[in-house]
Protein backbone atom coordinates (compact mmCIF):
# COMPACT_ATOMS: atom_id res chain seq x y z
CA UNK A 1 0.00 0.00 0.00
CA UNK A 2 1.22 3.49 -0.78
CA UNK A 3 1.58 5.91 2.06
CA UNK A 4 -1.14 8.56 2.24
CA UNK A 5 0.49 11.91 1.46
CA UNK A 6 -0.82 15.44 2.07
CA UNK A 7 0.15 19.08 2.11
CA UNK A 8 -0.20 20.30 5.66
CA UNK A 9 -2.13 23.55 5.90
CA UNK A 10 -1.61 24.88 9.43
CA UNK A 11 -3.45 28.18 8.92
CA UNK A 12 -2.67 31.21 11.06
CA UNK A 13 -4.00 30.60 14.52
CA UNK A 14 -2.18 27.32 15.15
CA UNK A 15 1.32 28.75 14.60
CA UNK A 16 0.22 31.91 16.41
CA UNK A 17 -0.86 30.34 19.68
CA UNK A 18 -1.60 26.60 19.49
CA UNK A 19 1.59 24.78 18.52
CA UNK A 20 0.50 22.00 20.85
CA UNK A 21 -2.07 20.94 18.24
CA UNK A 22 0.47 20.90 15.41
CA UNK A 23 3.11 19.11 17.48
CA UNK A 24 0.75 16.34 18.58
CA UNK A 25 -0.83 15.99 15.13
CA UNK A 26 2.55 15.60 13.45
CA UNK A 27 3.58 12.96 16.01
CA UNK A 28 0.54 10.73 15.60
CA UNK A 29 0.39 11.12 11.81
CA UNK A 30 4.04 10.06 11.51
CA UNK A 31 3.26 7.02 13.66
CA UNK A 32 0.40 6.19 11.30
CA UNK A 33 2.70 6.38 8.22
CA UNK A 34 1.01 9.49 6.89
CA UNK A 35 3.46 11.60 4.95
CA UNK A 36 3.18 15.36 5.38
CA UNK A 37 4.68 17.69 2.81
CA UNK A 38 5.28 21.31 3.86
CA UNK A 39 3.14 23.62 1.81
CA UNK A 40 5.20 26.33 0.14
CA UNK A 41 4.11 29.98 0.42
CA UNK A 42 0.53 29.61 1.52
CA UNK A 43 -1.53 32.43 2.94
CA UNK A 44 -4.50 32.73 5.27
CA UNK A 45 -7.39 30.61 4.03
CA UNK A 46 -9.57 33.68 3.70
CA UNK A 47 -12.21 32.62 6.22
CA UNK A 48 -12.41 35.84 8.29
CA UNK A 49 -12.44 37.98 5.14
CA UNK A 50 -15.78 36.53 4.00
CA UNK A 51 -17.50 39.24 6.04
CA UNK A 52 -15.68 41.96 4.10
CA UNK A 53 -15.97 40.62 0.58
CA UNK A 54 -17.02 37.16 -0.59
CA UNK A 55 -14.79 37.31 -3.67
CA UNK A 56 -11.80 38.11 -1.48
CA UNK A 57 -12.40 34.99 0.63
CA UNK A 58 -12.90 32.81 -2.46
CA UNK A 59 -9.77 34.14 -4.17
CA UNK A 60 -7.51 33.85 -1.12
CA UNK A 61 -8.74 30.29 -0.59
CA UNK A 62 -8.45 29.46 -4.29
CA UNK A 63 -4.86 30.69 -4.37
CA UNK A 64 -4.00 28.07 -1.74
CA UNK A 65 -5.89 25.44 -3.74
CA UNK A 66 -3.88 26.34 -6.84
CA UNK A 67 -0.63 25.78 -4.93
CA UNK A 68 -1.90 22.31 -3.98
CA UNK A 69 -2.95 21.58 -7.56
CA UNK A 70 0.51 22.47 -8.80
CA UNK A 71 2.03 20.05 -6.33
CA UNK A 72 -0.49 17.37 -7.18
CA UNK A 73 -1.41 16.70 -3.56
CA UNK A 74 -4.53 16.96 -1.40
CA UNK A 75 -4.62 19.42 1.52
CA UNK A 76 -4.87 18.33 5.14
CA UNK A 77 -6.21 20.94 7.57
CA UNK A 78 -6.19 20.84 11.35
CA UNK A 79 -8.53 23.80 11.73
CA UNK A 80 -12.31 23.69 11.15
CA UNK A 81 -12.23 27.25 9.84
CA UNK A 82 -9.55 26.49 7.26
CA UNK A 83 -11.41 23.32 6.29
CA UNK A 84 -14.61 25.30 5.92
CA UNK A 85 -13.29 27.95 3.56
CA UNK A 86 -10.90 25.76 1.56
CA UNK A 87 -13.35 22.89 1.12
CA UNK A 88 -16.30 25.14 0.36
CA UNK A 89 -14.31 27.17 -2.17
CA UNK A 90 -13.03 23.98 -3.79
CA UNK A 91 -16.59 22.65 -4.18
CA UNK A 92 -18.07 25.95 -5.34
CA UNK A 93 -15.41 26.46 -7.98
CA UNK A 94 -15.65 22.86 -9.15
CA UNK A 95 -19.43 22.96 -9.51
CA UNK A 96 -20.34 26.55 -10.37
CA UNK A 97 -18.98 27.62 -13.73
CA UNK A 98 -19.92 31.27 -13.28
CA UNK A 99 -18.11 31.58 -9.95
CA UNK A 100 -15.12 29.73 -11.31
CA UNK A 101 -14.78 32.06 -14.28
CA UNK A 102 -15.03 35.08 -12.04
CA UNK A 103 -12.44 33.86 -9.52
CA UNK A 104 -10.13 32.65 -12.27
CA UNK A 105 -10.29 36.18 -13.63
CA UNK A 106 -8.81 37.44 -10.36
CA UNK A 107 -6.32 34.58 -10.16
CA UNK A 108 -5.03 35.41 -13.60
CA UNK A 109 -3.59 38.61 -12.12
CA UNK A 110 -1.32 36.45 -9.96
CA UNK A 111 -0.58 33.98 -12.76
CA UNK A 112 -2.67 31.18 -11.37
CA UNK A 113 -5.66 29.18 -12.50
CA UNK A 114 -8.04 26.97 -10.55
CA UNK A 115 -8.40 23.67 -12.36
CA UNK A 116 -10.33 21.59 -9.85
CA UNK A 117 -7.86 18.77 -9.32
CA UNK A 118 -7.25 18.83 -5.59
CA UNK A 119 -9.13 17.80 -2.49
CA UNK A 120 -9.37 19.24 1.02
CA UNK A 121 -9.56 17.00 4.06
CA UNK A 122 -9.82 17.71 7.75
CA UNK A 123 -7.70 15.64 10.11
CA UNK A 124 -10.66 13.59 11.35
CA UNK A 125 -11.60 12.51 7.83
CA UNK A 126 -8.00 11.67 6.96
CA UNK A 127 -7.92 9.44 10.02
CA UNK A 128 -11.33 7.83 9.56
CA UNK A 129 -11.36 7.48 5.75
CA UNK A 130 -7.78 7.27 4.56
CA UNK A 131 -5.83 5.80 7.47
CA UNK A 132 -8.68 3.66 8.73
CA UNK A 133 -9.79 2.50 12.17
CA UNK A 134 -7.95 -0.82 11.97
CA UNK A 135 -4.57 0.81 11.47
CA UNK A 136 -5.15 3.31 14.28
CA UNK A 137 -6.22 0.57 16.62
CA UNK A 138 -3.02 -1.33 15.96
CA UNK A 139 -0.91 1.61 17.11
CA UNK A 140 -2.69 1.89 20.48
CA UNK A 141 -0.32 0.32 22.98
CA UNK A 142 -1.58 1.99 26.16
CA UNK A 143 -5.39 1.95 26.01
CA UNK A 144 -6.91 4.70 28.16
CA UNK A 145 -9.55 2.36 29.51
CA UNK A 146 -10.31 4.15 32.75
CA UNK A 147 -10.88 7.57 31.21
CA UNK A 148 -14.23 9.12 30.33
CA UNK A 149 -14.29 12.03 27.91
CA UNK A 150 -16.74 14.01 25.77
CA UNK A 151 -16.17 15.41 22.28
CA UNK A 152 -16.89 18.70 20.57
CA UNK A 153 -16.41 18.24 16.80
CA UNK A 154 -17.38 21.85 16.08
CA UNK A 155 -19.77 23.02 13.40
CA UNK A 156 -17.44 23.67 10.50
CA UNK A 157 -16.17 20.13 10.22
CA UNK A 158 -19.82 19.01 9.83
CA UNK A 159 -21.78 21.90 8.32
CA UNK A 160 -23.10 23.01 5.94
CA UNK A 161 -24.05 19.52 4.94
CA UNK A 162 -24.12 20.28 1.22
CA UNK A 163 -20.42 21.18 1.16
CA UNK A 164 -19.03 18.83 3.81
CA UNK A 165 -21.20 15.83 2.92
CA UNK A 166 -19.50 13.42 5.25
CA UNK A 167 -20.54 12.80 8.86
CA UNK A 168 -24.17 13.38 9.94
CA UNK A 169 -24.26 16.90 11.42
CA UNK A 170 -27.26 16.05 13.61
CA UNK A 171 -25.62 12.99 15.12
CA UNK A 172 -21.90 13.04 14.37
CA UNK A 173 -19.99 9.82 15.03
CA UNK A 174 -16.58 10.25 13.36
CA UNK A 175 -14.78 11.85 16.29
CA UNK A 176 -16.61 9.62 18.79
CA UNK A 177 -15.39 6.52 17.00
CA UNK A 178 -11.87 7.90 16.81
CA UNK A 179 -11.96 8.53 20.55
CA UNK A 180 -13.18 5.01 21.28
CA UNK A 181 -10.12 3.62 19.49
CA UNK A 182 -7.95 5.06 22.26
CA UNK A 183 -9.76 2.91 24.78
CA UNK A 184 -11.37 5.92 26.46
CA UNK A 185 -15.10 6.03 26.91
CA UNK A 186 -16.87 8.79 24.92
CA UNK A 187 -19.93 10.14 26.70
CA UNK A 188 -23.00 11.69 25.11
CA UNK A 189 -24.25 14.99 26.48
CA UNK A 190 -26.96 17.53 25.82
CA UNK A 191 -26.73 19.74 22.70
CA UNK A 192 -23.51 18.13 21.49
CA UNK A 193 -23.61 19.77 18.09
CA UNK A 194 -24.10 23.29 19.42
CA UNK A 195 -21.58 25.91 18.24
CA UNK A 196 -19.08 27.44 20.68
CA UNK A 197 -19.66 31.04 19.59
CA UNK A 198 -15.98 31.84 19.02
CA UNK A 199 -16.39 33.51 15.60
CA UNK A 200 -18.19 36.53 17.06
CA UNK A 201 -16.08 36.97 20.19
CA UNK A 202 -14.35 40.02 18.73
CA UNK A 203 -17.71 41.72 18.27
CA UNK A 204 -19.58 40.55 21.37
CA UNK A 205 -18.26 38.51 24.29
CA UNK A 206 -21.47 38.02 26.17
CA UNK A 207 -23.17 35.56 23.81
CA UNK A 208 -20.13 33.30 23.17
CA UNK A 209 -19.33 33.16 26.88
CA UNK A 210 -22.88 32.07 27.63
CA UNK A 211 -22.72 29.45 24.89
CA UNK A 212 -19.40 28.04 26.04
CA UNK A 213 -20.44 28.06 29.68
CA UNK A 214 -23.58 26.09 28.85
CA UNK A 215 -21.53 23.52 26.95
CA UNK A 216 -19.06 23.16 29.83
CA UNK A 217 -22.01 22.62 32.18
CA UNK A 218 -23.49 19.93 29.94
CA UNK A 219 -20.14 18.18 29.67
CA UNK A 220 -19.61 18.33 33.43
CA UNK A 221 -23.12 17.03 34.09
CA UNK A 222 -22.37 13.65 32.49
CA UNK A 223 -19.12 13.27 34.41
CA UNK A 224 -16.61 13.70 31.60
CA UNK A 225 -13.01 14.08 32.75
CA UNK A 226 -11.89 15.94 29.63
CA UNK A 227 -13.29 17.54 26.50
CA UNK A 228 -11.76 16.60 23.14
CA UNK A 229 -11.61 19.08 20.24
CA UNK A 230 -10.30 19.08 16.66
CA UNK A 231 -10.20 22.81 15.94
CA UNK A 232 -7.98 25.57 17.37
CA UNK A 233 -10.91 27.98 17.70
CA UNK A 234 -13.09 25.53 19.63
CA UNK A 235 -10.03 24.79 21.75
CA UNK A 236 -9.36 28.45 22.53
CA UNK A 237 -12.97 28.90 23.53
CA UNK A 238 -12.99 26.04 26.03
CA UNK A 239 -9.38 25.92 27.23
CA UNK A 240 -7.78 29.37 26.97
CA UNK A 241 -11.02 31.16 27.81
CA UNK A 242 -12.11 28.74 30.53
CA UNK A 243 -10.66 30.81 33.40
CA UNK A 244 -12.39 33.92 32.07
CA UNK A 245 -15.68 32.05 31.78
CA UNK A 246 -15.22 30.78 35.33
CA UNK A 247 -14.70 34.32 36.58
CA UNK A 248 -17.59 35.77 34.59
CA UNK A 249 -20.10 33.26 36.00
CA UNK A 250 -18.48 32.55 39.34
CA UNK A 251 -18.21 28.87 38.48
CA UNK A 252 -15.45 26.28 38.68
CA UNK A 253 -15.07 23.76 35.86
CA UNK A 254 -11.41 22.82 35.86
CA UNK A 255 -12.07 20.69 32.78
CA UNK A 256 -8.99 19.85 30.69
CA UNK A 257 -9.50 20.31 26.94
CA UNK A 258 -7.26 18.13 24.76
CA UNK A 259 -6.66 18.19 21.02
CA UNK A 260 -7.68 14.77 19.70
CA UNK A 261 -4.11 13.89 18.59
CA UNK A 262 -2.96 14.50 22.16
CA UNK A 263 -5.42 11.88 23.40
CA UNK A 264 -4.50 9.44 20.65
CA UNK A 265 -0.81 10.15 21.22
CA UNK A 266 -1.09 9.23 24.90
CA UNK A 267 -2.73 5.94 23.90
CA UNK A 268 0.14 5.35 21.47
CA UNK A 269 2.59 5.67 24.33
CA UNK A 270 3.98 9.16 23.69
CA UNK A 271 4.82 11.11 26.83
CA UNK A 272 2.76 14.18 27.83
CA UNK A 273 5.85 16.32 27.12
CA UNK A 274 6.21 14.94 23.61
CA UNK A 275 2.58 15.90 22.96
CA UNK A 276 2.98 19.40 24.45
CA UNK A 277 0.31 18.80 27.11
CA UNK A 278 2.15 21.28 29.31
CA UNK A 279 0.96 24.05 26.97
CA UNK A 280 -2.69 23.61 27.91
CA UNK A 281 -4.19 26.39 30.01
CA UNK A 282 -6.25 24.02 32.16
CA UNK A 283 -3.66 21.60 33.50
CA UNK A 284 -4.56 17.94 32.93
CA UNK A 285 -2.72 16.82 36.07
CA UNK A 286 -5.58 14.80 37.52
CA UNK A 287 -6.36 13.22 34.17
CA UNK A 288 -2.77 12.09 33.76
CA UNK A 289 -2.77 10.64 37.27
CA UNK A 290 -5.90 8.69 36.46
CA UNK A 291 -4.24 7.33 33.34
CA UNK A 292 -1.23 6.23 35.34
CA UNK A 293 -3.43 4.40 37.80
CA UNK A 294 -5.06 2.54 34.90
CA UNK A 295 -1.77 1.12 33.70
Amino acid at each position, binding site marked *: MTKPKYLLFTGCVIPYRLSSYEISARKVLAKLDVELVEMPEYNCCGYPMDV*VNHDLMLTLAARNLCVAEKMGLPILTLCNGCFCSLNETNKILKEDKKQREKINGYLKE*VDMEFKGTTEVKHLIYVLSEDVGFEKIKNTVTKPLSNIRVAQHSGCHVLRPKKYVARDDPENPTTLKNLIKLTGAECLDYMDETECCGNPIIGVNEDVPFNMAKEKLEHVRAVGAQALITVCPFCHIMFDLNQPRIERAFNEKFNLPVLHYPQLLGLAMGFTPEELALNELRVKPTELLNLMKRGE
Partner: protein
Amino acid sequence: MTEEKEYVPPVIKAEELDPKFKYKMSKEHGAEKVMVCFQCGTCTADCPIARFSEFYRPRRIARMVQLGLKDRLLLDGALWLCSSCFTCVDHCPQGVEIAGIVRVLRNMTVEDKNLLPLVYKELATNLMKTGFVYEIPDSRLQKRVEQGLPPLPKPNMKDVLKIFEVTGSARLLEKVQTIAKVESK
Protein backbone atom coordinates in the same frame (compact mmCIF):
# COMPACT_ATOMS: atom_id res chain seq x y z
CA MET B 1 -34.45 45.39 38.93
CA THR B 2 -34.60 47.09 35.57
CA GLU B 3 -37.54 49.31 34.85
CA GLU B 4 -40.15 47.99 32.41
CA LYS B 5 -40.09 50.07 29.27
CA GLU B 6 -43.40 51.14 27.85
CA TYR B 7 -44.14 49.02 24.78
CA VAL B 8 -43.94 50.98 21.56
CA PRO B 9 -45.10 49.01 18.53
CA PRO B 10 -42.52 49.16 15.73
CA VAL B 11 -43.62 51.37 12.87
CA ILE B 12 -42.46 50.80 9.33
CA LYS B 13 -42.86 53.72 6.99
CA ALA B 14 -43.74 52.94 3.37
CA GLU B 15 -40.85 55.01 2.08
CA GLU B 16 -38.42 52.76 3.93
CA LEU B 17 -39.40 49.80 1.79
CA ASP B 18 -37.39 49.03 -1.30
CA PRO B 19 -39.50 46.58 -3.34
CA LYS B 20 -36.58 45.78 -5.63
CA PHE B 21 -34.25 44.79 -2.82
CA LYS B 22 -35.34 41.15 -2.70
CA TYR B 23 -34.62 40.73 -6.39
CA LYS B 24 -31.19 42.24 -5.98
CA MET B 25 -30.50 39.90 -3.05
CA SER B 26 -31.71 36.84 -4.99
CA LYS B 27 -28.95 37.40 -7.51
CA GLU B 28 -26.24 37.14 -4.87
CA HIS B 29 -24.38 33.89 -4.28
CA GLY B 30 -25.78 32.30 -1.10
CA ALA B 31 -28.94 34.45 -0.95
CA GLU B 32 -30.70 33.07 -4.05
CA LYS B 33 -33.60 31.51 -2.15
CA VAL B 34 -34.57 34.38 0.14
CA MET B 35 -37.94 34.86 -1.55
CA VAL B 36 -39.19 31.36 -0.75
CA CYS B 37 -38.84 31.79 3.01
CA PHE B 38 -42.34 31.14 4.39
CA GLN B 39 -41.56 32.34 7.91
CA CYS B 40 -41.84 28.96 9.65
CA GLY B 41 -39.29 30.05 12.28
CA THR B 42 -37.20 26.88 12.29
CA CYS B 43 -34.04 28.92 11.84
CA THR B 44 -34.75 31.14 14.83
CA ALA B 45 -35.75 28.18 17.00
CA ASP B 46 -32.49 26.36 16.23
CA CYS B 47 -30.11 29.34 16.14
CA PRO B 48 -27.67 29.19 19.08
CA ILE B 49 -27.10 32.96 18.98
CA ALA B 50 -30.83 33.71 19.14
CA ARG B 51 -31.01 31.73 22.37
CA PHE B 52 -28.68 34.13 24.11
CA SER B 53 -29.54 37.39 22.38
CA GLU B 54 -32.75 39.28 22.91
CA PHE B 55 -33.00 40.54 19.35
CA TYR B 56 -30.91 38.44 16.99
CA ARG B 57 -33.56 36.57 14.97
CA PRO B 58 -32.66 34.91 11.64
CA ARG B 59 -36.31 34.60 10.58
CA ARG B 60 -36.71 38.35 10.99
CA ILE B 61 -33.69 38.94 8.77
CA ALA B 62 -35.30 36.90 5.97
CA ARG B 63 -38.57 38.85 6.35
CA MET B 64 -36.83 42.20 6.38
CA VAL B 65 -35.07 41.30 3.14
CA GLN B 66 -38.40 40.32 1.57
CA LEU B 67 -39.92 43.63 2.67
CA GLY B 68 -36.96 45.58 1.39
CA LEU B 69 -35.91 47.14 4.70
CA LYS B 70 -32.38 47.54 3.45
CA ASP B 71 -31.16 50.43 5.57
CA ARG B 72 -32.53 48.97 8.78
CA LEU B 73 -30.75 45.71 8.04
CA LEU B 74 -27.44 47.28 7.14
CA LEU B 75 -27.30 49.75 9.99
CA ASP B 76 -28.49 47.32 12.65
CA GLY B 77 -25.50 45.83 14.48
CA ALA B 78 -27.37 42.51 14.83
CA LEU B 79 -25.97 41.39 11.49
CA TRP B 80 -22.58 40.95 13.11
CA LEU B 81 -23.84 38.50 15.74
CA CYS B 82 -24.29 35.49 13.41
CA SER B 83 -21.54 32.95 14.14
CA SER B 84 -21.90 31.27 10.72
CA CYS B 85 -22.52 27.90 12.34
CA PHE B 86 -24.77 26.89 9.40
CA THR B 87 -27.39 25.23 11.61
CA CYS B 88 -30.11 27.33 9.94
CA VAL B 89 -28.83 26.35 6.50
CA ASP B 90 -29.02 22.64 7.32
CA HIS B 91 -32.46 22.92 8.96
CA CYS B 92 -34.47 25.23 6.69
CA PRO B 93 -37.30 23.29 4.99
CA GLN B 94 -37.20 25.72 2.06
CA GLY B 95 -33.49 25.59 1.39
CA VAL B 96 -33.01 29.24 2.38
CA GLU B 97 -29.47 29.95 3.56
CA ILE B 98 -29.66 32.56 6.30
CA ALA B 99 -25.91 32.37 6.90
CA GLY B 100 -25.38 33.19 3.22
CA ILE B 101 -27.91 36.04 3.36
CA VAL B 102 -26.17 37.47 6.42
CA ARG B 103 -22.84 37.31 4.62
CA VAL B 104 -24.25 39.15 1.60
CA LEU B 105 -25.72 41.80 3.91
CA ARG B 106 -22.40 42.19 5.73
CA ASN B 107 -20.58 42.64 2.42
CA MET B 108 -23.19 45.26 1.48
CA THR B 109 -22.70 47.08 4.79
CA VAL B 110 -19.01 47.37 4.02
CA GLU B 111 -19.60 48.47 0.45
CA ASP B 112 -22.59 50.81 0.83
CA LYS B 113 -22.30 52.08 4.39
CA ASN B 114 -18.54 51.88 4.87
CA LEU B 115 -18.96 50.15 8.22
CA LEU B 116 -17.02 47.18 9.60
CA PRO B 117 -16.41 45.87 13.13
CA LEU B 118 -12.94 46.85 14.29
CA VAL B 119 -11.80 43.26 14.80
CA TYR B 120 -12.13 42.45 11.08
CA LYS B 121 -10.32 45.60 10.09
CA GLU B 122 -7.44 44.52 12.34
CA LEU B 123 -7.41 40.99 10.92
CA ALA B 124 -7.41 42.42 7.39
CA THR B 125 -4.57 44.80 8.25
CA ASN B 126 -2.47 41.92 9.59
CA LEU B 127 -3.27 39.85 6.53
CA MET B 128 -2.16 42.61 4.19
CA LYS B 129 1.02 42.99 6.18
CA THR B 130 2.01 39.37 6.82
CA GLY B 131 -0.21 37.01 4.81
CA PHE B 132 -1.75 35.70 8.02
CA VAL B 133 -4.57 37.29 10.02
CA TYR B 134 -2.42 37.33 13.15
CA GLU B 135 0.98 38.92 13.33
CA ILE B 136 3.07 36.00 14.51
CA PRO B 137 5.91 37.40 16.64
CA ASP B 138 9.52 36.38 15.97
CA SER B 139 9.73 34.75 19.39
CA ARG B 140 6.98 32.36 18.29
CA LEU B 141 8.77 31.49 15.09
CA GLN B 142 11.93 30.90 17.09
CA LYS B 143 10.05 28.68 19.51
CA ARG B 144 8.78 26.55 16.62
CA VAL B 145 12.35 25.70 15.74
CA GLU B 146 13.14 24.87 19.37
CA GLN B 147 10.10 22.61 19.48
CA GLY B 148 11.29 20.75 16.40
CA LEU B 149 8.67 22.17 14.04
CA PRO B 150 9.63 23.13 10.48
CA PRO B 151 9.82 26.86 9.77
CA LEU B 152 6.58 28.51 8.66
CA PRO B 153 6.39 29.04 4.92
CA LYS B 154 6.65 32.66 3.81
CA PRO B 155 3.42 33.88 2.23
CA ASN B 156 3.73 35.47 -1.19
CA MET B 157 2.88 39.05 -0.23
CA LYS B 158 2.91 40.29 -3.78
CA ASP B 159 0.08 37.88 -4.61
CA VAL B 160 -1.85 38.58 -1.42
CA LEU B 161 -1.80 42.34 -2.01
CA LYS B 162 -2.73 41.88 -5.64
CA ILE B 163 -5.76 39.82 -4.60
CA PHE B 164 -6.85 42.58 -2.22
CA GLU B 165 -6.48 45.05 -5.04
CA VAL B 166 -8.22 43.23 -7.90
CA THR B 167 -11.20 42.15 -5.79
CA GLY B 168 -11.68 45.77 -4.77
CA SER B 169 -11.15 44.88 -1.13
CA ALA B 170 -8.17 47.17 -0.55
CA ARG B 171 -10.27 50.15 -1.61
CA LEU B 172 -13.19 49.05 0.57
CA LEU B 173 -10.99 48.59 3.62
CA GLU B 174 -9.32 51.93 3.19
CA LYS B 175 -12.52 53.89 3.60
CA VAL B 176 -14.39 51.85 6.24
CA GLN B 177 -15.25 53.28 9.60
CA THR B 178 -15.08 50.80 12.41
CA ILE B 179 -17.69 49.69 14.93
CA ALA B 180 -16.19 48.75 18.28
CA LYS B 181 -18.65 46.27 19.83
CA VAL B 182 -22.20 45.09 19.20
CA GLU B 183 -24.69 44.67 22.02
CA SER B 184 -26.74 41.47 22.18
CA LYS B 185 -29.38 42.48 24.71
